[in-house]
């Protein structure tokens, strides 16, 4: 799939699907704890464009640091 991009670059208000998590086991585990597995549908609430980002996953809001968001690859929903 060629239309994937890092979560970091997602626009506020857009909806994306997590495509791939490009990080080590610790990174993976933290995301799993938050229920952010590949295939999850999320919405960008605030931040982004190279800063930390707030996303919505169903009822909850999760803040993700910029370096982490750079390693989460998403595709448009």
């Amino acid at each position: 799939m060629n239309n994937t991009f890092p979560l970091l670059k997602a626009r506020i208000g857009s909806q994306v699907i997590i495509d791939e998590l490009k990080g080590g086991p610790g990174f993976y585990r933290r995301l799993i704890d938050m229920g952010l597995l590949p295939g999850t549908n999320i919405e960008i609430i605030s931040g982004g464009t190279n800063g930390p980002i707030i996303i919505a996953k169903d009822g909850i809001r999760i803040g993700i640091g910029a370096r982490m968001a750079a390693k989460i690859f998403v595709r448009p929903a």
Partner: protein
Amino acid sequence: MNYTVAIAGNPNSGKSTIFNALTGLHQHIGNWSGVTVEKKYGEYKIGEHIINIVDLPGTYSLNPKSIDERIARDFIISKKSDLVVVVVNASDLEKSLTLLIDILEAGIKTLVVFNMMDMVKIQGKTIDIRTLEKILNIRILKTVAHKKIGTDRLKLSILQEIKTPTQQRFKIQYKERIETTIKKAIKYITVPENIGVNKRWIFLKFLEGENILNFSEETLKRLNEYKKIISDFLHSQNLELYFVEKRYAYVEGLIKETVKNELPLEKRIFISDRIDRIVTNKFLGIPIFILVMGAMFYLVFTIGTPLSNLIESFFEWISVIIKTFLTGLNISSIIISFIVDGIIGGVGSIIVFLPNIALLFLGIGILESSGYMARAAFIMDKFMHIFGLHGKSFIPMIMGFGCTVPAIMSARTLDSEKDRILTILVLPLMSCSARLPIYVLFASIFFPHKEAFVVLSLYFLGIIIAMIVARIFKNIFFKAKIAPLIVELPPYRMPVWKDIFISVWIKSKLFIKKAGTVILLAAVIMWVLASLPPGVEYASRESFIGKIGSFFAPVLKLSGFGFYEAAVALIMGFMAKELVVSSLGTLFGTTLRSSIQTLFTPISAYAFMIMSLVYVPCIATIATIKQEAGWKWSVIVILYSIILGWILATIFYQTSLLIKTIF
């Protein structure tokens, strides 16, 4: 009968609110044995039964990643409780249910509370609770804990559930091959008396990499053979991921079956998100944060100071009354001095600040309860990185405005050891509430009507110094990368006033208790040292205390306060920062304010405040640092803080003098 009930759940699930609703003011704070994680427990009475409640640290799973989570896990699987109440955040079912089915699979007796049912309504969802109860073979209660909806019924249901003998048999069915291997493997497992879980779960956790029972060499060998069969079968080395994903998949299925969304996703824009778009905005985030903090301190003073003045007048009034009364009784002047100067002067001078301190805790409580505090970590992440700190370091730093000791403990939320120790090293630079009286006293004497501004400047100065020190320590000791940041942000909501008032009440009580014990004792010792040797003028240079102070005073001369009273106050401050003010109170008695006014100038007063801010944290803090990070770091903290405090106070004093003479 006495029963014990543990409350478990994700962080932010409303666990503490449930705990508060159950126990009210009947709660205690202690430590989990061996570690310094805060342990909250309490009790409530129902009929002739007493139900003891233990509030476990928040956890996402039974595969612990931090000490907090390990404590929660170990308590849940021990037989220490008669029932585990699992608090589920109903507006975030996926994460909560994953923890729940992990607990159910272990075969632990549980009662489930679906909290925040009001949020579910706002989200436009309906949850088919009956079906969930049937599938999972559990009882579910609905609550909106912060509005006290359903909490009375919970009290009764807990007792009913304890008395109903049930056997939890829930399990997720894995692939045939895995199930048969599990059956063979568990023959080699014996569960000890004090552990209340089934063998199957112990083995599942073993597959996930948790050796909970510390198996013997021999058992370990056998179990590893079975583990290999399963990992060969799944073509995977990371079995933990396999089982975690299975649990998630199971939960997803459950949710599909029982939850209906009435509103499409795009229509669910909450007020909370609107607020977040502004409050966490790239450009507005930090200015808004500074504004919020400013407003908090402004309120602490505009409301607190008149109340403090009232208490101060009260102590002055009572001093006069007692003095006249005792003089009338012909009691020797030494005893009168002991009571009036020693006790009332020492303890009174610190009790005066109770309103300011209570209001500060109220402010921190509001920030926490409203959901803003969690955002602070997020907003400050990038900024904190510049100085080598983690976004999550910020919450302990704000808590440090209350008291450094719990702040150091709360640094446990940082996953990386290096980030955690670095945070601990700079936490003493956050002005704790015990330093507030020093600022307020000096600011009100030398900078009237600008108190809030002066005090706020010291708070920010503390933050700035902490940042710079962090950067330096990061370069010297911790050259590793900072751990990535991911935090759950609870939705904004009206603060839960009951929780806040309970917390303010408990902390104010502690403060008064400290004033009545440690500070009283110190005041008595101070008074004795100030009155001896016999015949000496009270608190004069010739008294013992005067001699001790005079010994150190020359060192402080360059900083602008080279007199023995200041030296004594600072030495006492090492015991507890409140003692800086209270020992001045004991030394000067009723002439506290006028004496300070003659000894200090505005410049030396500010230098003294800088010194009080930076120099050595109190003994309790040092002890906590030793416990949490080791003695090496506590020694480093003592050394750097004393040297830095003196240097900064001196630089400030000397340059200010220089500037003053030039202009």
